[in-house]
């Protein structure tokens, strides 16, 4: 046990498990919530991008001036809330150099956004790109105010989104990537551990049955093993994912159904050798029922090997899930690292140069696999001393 505490993977796993259980409390919003503009960069990345700003014009303060020292904001949106509409008066935007844009008349409930093509056309802009880059062409002093004179009740709220957010920025739907990353730990751990547990359980029971009983049971189970081994994993997973809908537990079930074969073979081989051992023969001679022999004697013999195989099987399950998610065949409501990579790739992280979207999930998967590999190695060494020595992991 002491050896376990000395291994880096053990501590890593503890940290990851803690994050999986409590990590979402670190964030204010749910991982699926939209928190900022899509493809926002991490806070530490691009200093020339402005911070997110809110302005408000009201009856008492009908104008505002901005000393703008940044690049253009990534989003511009405006909302008019007024008790009495004054359609002859407009919200005006003046850029350095004097040119003025008329944004909207003061009607009740007007909502404008730099992405609306109608808005862009009203400003005489081409329909492509966000209007904010035309509204903020350079550094300087900008003025927003109301045309015309007179009293006015109501408010005009303007929001300028900076384009920077959080530790890892946002994805194509404006979700916090750091929050998604932490949520993904849970999914990967769940899939990895449960799929392997289930597969081990299946494999052990079937292997014991085949090895101990022999005859017909053995033949049928071994045929099933051969059949399942002849079907390549990824294609059948693809077909079943398409067939069965895409829940997380369905995926775990499918993964385990196709991974029990190796364990079954190993357990069967072990059972075959042990079955003919002297003390087992003696027990049988004494009239001990098969169940007793299996439970009290054979099963404990297989446990050390099983533990090692199981720990080494977890990375396999995690990688299979990641592969399926990457190909787009998983449940999109389930946030997993593979899914994050799939969405990054299909929604244009590449084109946007958003490497902060692509690296964390991939590195996360690799880290988790390394952790389990190391733990598995440790357990394997405890079982089979020959592999010890010269082993650095």
């Amino acid at each position: 046990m002491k050896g376990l505490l000395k291994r880096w993977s053990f501590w890593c796993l503890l940290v990851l498990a803690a994050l999986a259980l409590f990590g979402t409390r670190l964030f204010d919003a749910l991982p699926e919530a939209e928190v900022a503009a899509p493809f926002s960069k991490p806070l530490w990345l691009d200093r020339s991008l402005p911070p997110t700003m809110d302005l408000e014009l009201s009856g008492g303060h009908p104008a505002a001036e901005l000393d703008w020292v940044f690049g253009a904001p990534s989003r511009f949106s405006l909302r008019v809330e007024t008790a009495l509409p004054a359609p002859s008066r407009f919200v005006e935007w003046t850029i350095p150099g004097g040119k003025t844009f008329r944004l909207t008349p003061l009607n009740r409930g007007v909502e404008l956004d730099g992405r609306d093509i109608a808005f862009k056309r009203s400003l005489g802009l081409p329909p492509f790109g966000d209007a904010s880059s035309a509204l903020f062409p350079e550094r300087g002093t900008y003025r927003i105010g109301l045309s015309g004179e007179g009293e006015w009740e109501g408010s005009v709220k303007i929001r300028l989104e900076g384009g920077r957010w959080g530790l890892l920025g946002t994805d194509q739907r404006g979700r916090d990537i750091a929050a998604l990353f932490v949520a993904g730990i849970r999914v990967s751990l769940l899939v990895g551990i449960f799929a392997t547990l289930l597969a081990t359980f299946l494999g052990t029971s079937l292997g014991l049955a085949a090895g101990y009983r022999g005859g017909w049971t053995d033949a049928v189970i071994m045929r099933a093993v051969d059949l399942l081994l002849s079907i390549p994993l990824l294609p059948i997973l693809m077909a079943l994912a398409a067939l069965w809908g895409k829940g997380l537990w369905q995926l775990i079930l499918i993964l385990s159904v196709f991974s029990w074969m190796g364990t079954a073979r190993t357990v069967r081989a072990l059972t075959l050798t042990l079955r003919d051992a002297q003390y087992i023969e003696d027990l049988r001679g004494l009239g001990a029922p098969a169940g007793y022999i299996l439970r009290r004697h054979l099963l404990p013999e297989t446990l050390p090997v099983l533990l090692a195989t199981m720990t080494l099987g977890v990375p396999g399950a995690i990688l299979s899930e990641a592969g399926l998610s990457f190909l787009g065949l998983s449940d999109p409501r389930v946030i997993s690292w593979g899914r994050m990579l799939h969405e990054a790739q299909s929604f244009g992280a590449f084109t946007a140069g958003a490497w902060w979207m692509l690296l964390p999930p991939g590195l996360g998967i690799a880290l988790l696999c390394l952790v389990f590999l190391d733990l598995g190695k440790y357990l394997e060494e405890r079982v089979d001393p020959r592999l010890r020595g010269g082993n650095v992991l």
Partner: protein
Amino acid sequence: MRKSLFALFLSAVFLALGSAPRAEASFDPEAFAGPKIQDLYLVIIRDPDAQLLALDRGKVDILGDLHRPVDVDALSKNPAVDLSLASGFHGFFLGFNVRTFPWNSLELRRSAWQALPRERMVRDLFAGYAEPLATFLPPVSPYFEPDVTAYPHDPEAARKRLAGAGWTWGSDGVLVSPDGRKIPPQKLLCPTASTAPTTAEIAVRMAEALTAIGIPVQAEPMDFSTMISRLDERDFQMYVLAWQMTRDPDSLYAFYSSKMDIRGGYNMPGISDPALDEVLDRLRFAPDETAARAAASEAQKLLSDLVPVVPVYSRYTISAVSKQWKGTLVTDRVTADNTWSLLAMEPASGPMRPLYLVQADEPRALNPFTSSSAYDWQVLGLIYDSLIAVDPYTLETIPWLAESWTIGTEAGPAGPRTVLTFRLREGVEWHDGKPLTAADAAFTYETLKKNAVPRYFDNVDNIDTVETPDDRTLKVTMKNVSFWHLHRVGGISILPRHVIEKVNDWRSWLPASEKHPSDPGLTGIVGTGPFVFREYRPGEYVRLSGNERFWLGRKR
């Protein structure tokens, strides 16, 4: 309410202004001639990132359909590329099962329409690159009727409407009908996010918007084919679906006539209104344009009152062309990679060189009989011609292989029937040099009809006889009367008789891999169009060459 009207007003003004070019000069197809380009490569690039990078690096010149907002934004900042926007006939709709409670209530459907925040959805999901749709035919349709009932986004007004119709809200916020029935939880069928990510998202948002006014809706993503089966079996409450309409409004018949409420038919909501049926019948079998227009107008007005489905948005098609080429024809109805562009494009400077166009997926069989994907027809449409073509500005019918035609009505054994008489151009040659005659067209129609080729089933089903009084005249007698027969029949690609009559099995015919009997540079794909098919390398590209003998604009 006002601000949406304002937005509508703005877009109407600017759509009109934007289409100003067509008002100034009418389009003259005869001003075009054979393609200036000698070599055209349709490069197969499926990955959008790779497409963008190829355009950026100058490896391709035209990218026809950008659908990721991120790509459009990136290209809008690229000074070497021109972007253009075209509205189309795509329509995305929210459908109801009008046969049962609660969607058999008209006021509920109208309120649902008012509760949907279209502009916000378009803004958030498409970054603004889609058109909020509030009509049953898209605004670019030549038969668009603007004077219909509107239901601008206003959840408050929706509630008032419901209250006025006798609906009440329970303590949990769920609506109760005037006769005391509470709305059970509704399932909104939609495709899964892996097949259609934005659709799934829209479904979720619509569900939220409707739940907010008291209709408890939840989105239920499922495999697309399963969803269609469920719709076919009428086992649904609500659904979302998108389809491509066409410039002919008689598709309204397919969607909303009660006769189409059958298995395999598209009247999934199950709307059945005698007045609507009558108008749609008149539309489908309209004898001439006046009747067609009147019927189309009435149909749209009725539909906006009956609300069998709620229109949500229509996709724009955005295309990008490298500034190193000039002569591109762009309108607000066609994208940059249309036939007219390809006829007129040439390098902005320097000698002629090959043009590279992006093809977003493999053309498949390249068999004009069986090919149904847009990717096949991106290729085949440049090779084959039909009797009529479409004006890129007004979407009206213009002469193509047929230089003129008449539409007549004659009495027949089963009632009056339309007779289309086409006069074909002179001097048109197939790519292998043989002349085009009316016999080719007749043989094409007869072959399609005889073999009941599925893709053309509806086009030729109503043809009774085809006659060729002489080499340049084609007389097609239909079985009944309809103004749309002209488009249905005139839009079929004409195939060469001397090639087709040698085909044994149209189902497995692979003309692209056959060698032409006499011309080594040709394959089994022989047409009269502006480009000649040369080579298809699966996974890589399709190579076409300019037809030097193309009939358009040739001096005789």
